[in-house]
């Protein structure tokens, strides 16, 4: 089973639209959404949730006010400013490090596991789908991503592929999404910010030694930056496997909860099919080497 993760340094480059389109074209696969902060894939997949589990992804200090003598040591020790003057813990600030539990002379503080999200395994017409939702402002999104990927393993049958919708950025969530994957497809757009973000996110893929490919969305929006992206990819050995044109009908289709494929946009459909063919080719080449 090969895991292909779709990422984008910058958000809103069309990652989820591409993944949901591929979910129609690619056969024999599972699906996963690792953008646990703001998952989107389920909106277009319209699956039925088969299994839902609470996720306890963080620890939080709890102060027992009956034994607390308000000595202030915990407040002084906490580097995150999570304990207020009333000796209450602010869950949004507590990192669950436990330093306060170590200094409390009364042993009045304990670390407790807290629910930080939910994981789901859904049945969709396009394959089994693993996804999750992190609670608002919660810690531990990287850990939840790991759980989503674990659920792929626990629910796989004999699928050949897993298509994974990654998350924007280059931090812990992205790292957790791509470690151990077989390939990364970075979806970029030809804007000044798009290029610098692409460089950073490809840097992360290379840092972790994962083969990375690039797809340029809305490539005709700025031919100059598109050619900059292409020459950057060329000189750094990242194959460009797709160019999708700027097309307002893609957004119109989305507003009707449809992928460009379902909306019958044949140009875009052909290009997306081509992206997948080129990706499979490149991966075969890698294997051959």
């Amino acid at each position, binding site marked *: 089973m090969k895991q292909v993760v779709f990422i*984008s*340094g*910058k*958000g*809103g*480059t069309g990652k*989820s639209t591409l993944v949901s389109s591929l979910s129609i074209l690619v056969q024999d696969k599972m699906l996963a959404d690792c953008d646990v*902060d*703001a998952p*989107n894939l389920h*909106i277009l997949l319209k699956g039925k949730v088969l299994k839902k589990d609470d996720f306890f992804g963080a*620890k939080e200090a709890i102060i027992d006010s009956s034994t607390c003598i308000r000595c202030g040591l915990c407040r002084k*020790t906490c*580097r*995150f400013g999570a304990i207020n003057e009333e000796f209450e813990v602010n869950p*949004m600030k507590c*990192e*669950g*490090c*436990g*330093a306060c539990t*170590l200094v409390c002379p009364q042993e009045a503080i304990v*670390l407790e596991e807290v629910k930080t999200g939910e994981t789901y395994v859904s049945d969709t017409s396009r394959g089994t789908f693993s996804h999750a939702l*992190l609670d*608002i*402002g*919660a*810690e531990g*999104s*990287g850990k939840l991503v790991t759980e989503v990927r674990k659920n792929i393993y626990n629910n796989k049958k004999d699928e050949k592929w897993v298509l994974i919708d990654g998350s*924007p*950025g*280059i*931090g*812990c*969530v992205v*790292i957790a999404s791509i470690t151990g994957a077989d390939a990364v497809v970075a979806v970029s*757009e030809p*804007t*000044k*910010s*798009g290029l*610098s*973000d692409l460089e*950073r996110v490809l*840097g*992360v893929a290379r*840092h*972790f030694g994962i083969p990375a490919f690039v797809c340029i969305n*809305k490539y005709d*929006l*700025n031919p100059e*930056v598109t050619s900059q992206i292409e020459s950057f990819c060329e000189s750094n050995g990242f194959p460009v496997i797709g160019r999708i044109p*700027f097309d*307002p009908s893609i*957004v*119109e289709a*989305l*507003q009707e*909860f449809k992928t460009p494929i379902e909306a019958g946009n044949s140009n875009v459909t052909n290009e997306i099919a081509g992206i997948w063919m080129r990706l499979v080719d490149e991966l075969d080449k890698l294997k051959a080497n």
Partner: protein
Amino acid sequence: MRIAVLSGKGGTGKTTVSASLAVSVPFCQYIDCDVEEPNGAIFLTPEIQESIPVKVPVPEADMAKCSACGYCAKACQFHAIAVVKGKVLVFPEICHHCGACVIACLNDAIREVERTIGVVEVNGDGTFLQGKLNVGEPVSIPIIRELRKRMKKDVPVILDCSPGASCAVVQSIEGCDYCVLVTEPTPFGLHDLKIAVRLVRKMGIPFGIVLNKASDSSRLIHDFCRDEGIELLMEIPFSQEIAESYSKGVLPAQNDDFWKEKFEKLYEKIERGAGK
């Protein structure tokens, strides 16, 4: 007055809105808190005068004092320390800099050394700030904290946050007077907007919505605002022209008085909304 600009979903136009505000509001300070992908500089083209490394303390064991008891590894909730056959292995990338290992050590054998995880960059008069997380580093909070320390007190401050509703966003918007939520009229945009709304409500910060890439064909966001009683502050139409000039690093408010005025109006609405 501190204004945070955020969006549940990436790519909705957060930077467009916050940077446009920055060029339309006189004497304001702009801070790019999206330290994973800072983009404001592309539009605001500041001259960076100062680059301050952001350092975090990470543990180092003094093997002359260490008894390899393993208490530090047990105390570390982030599994950043392993004690193996008399050796202390520290994994600095995973460290959260909490100091628990120092407290747990019975022999006073752990001291903390500084390690750079990114930078804060500032222009000459301190009206532009951005943070950058180094590639491969997972923990961005210390950089945001460093940026917030440099917020000016007596001028409007505009904070461009990272997408999502994660702990980094919480850290960025805490203590702000007003939040501007930027969204787009797609099911994705609406879904993520709802997440952002829940976040700012939970934090008790007044807020309003800016609808980017608005089109006549969709009332998705209008309906949501009406049902929830949220003020729709401004609409920016879906236009190839705006998208193209954005791709070149030019904001609508930068060379067009029509848009500059619009953003000045937006700021007035924000002031009213914040009750200041």
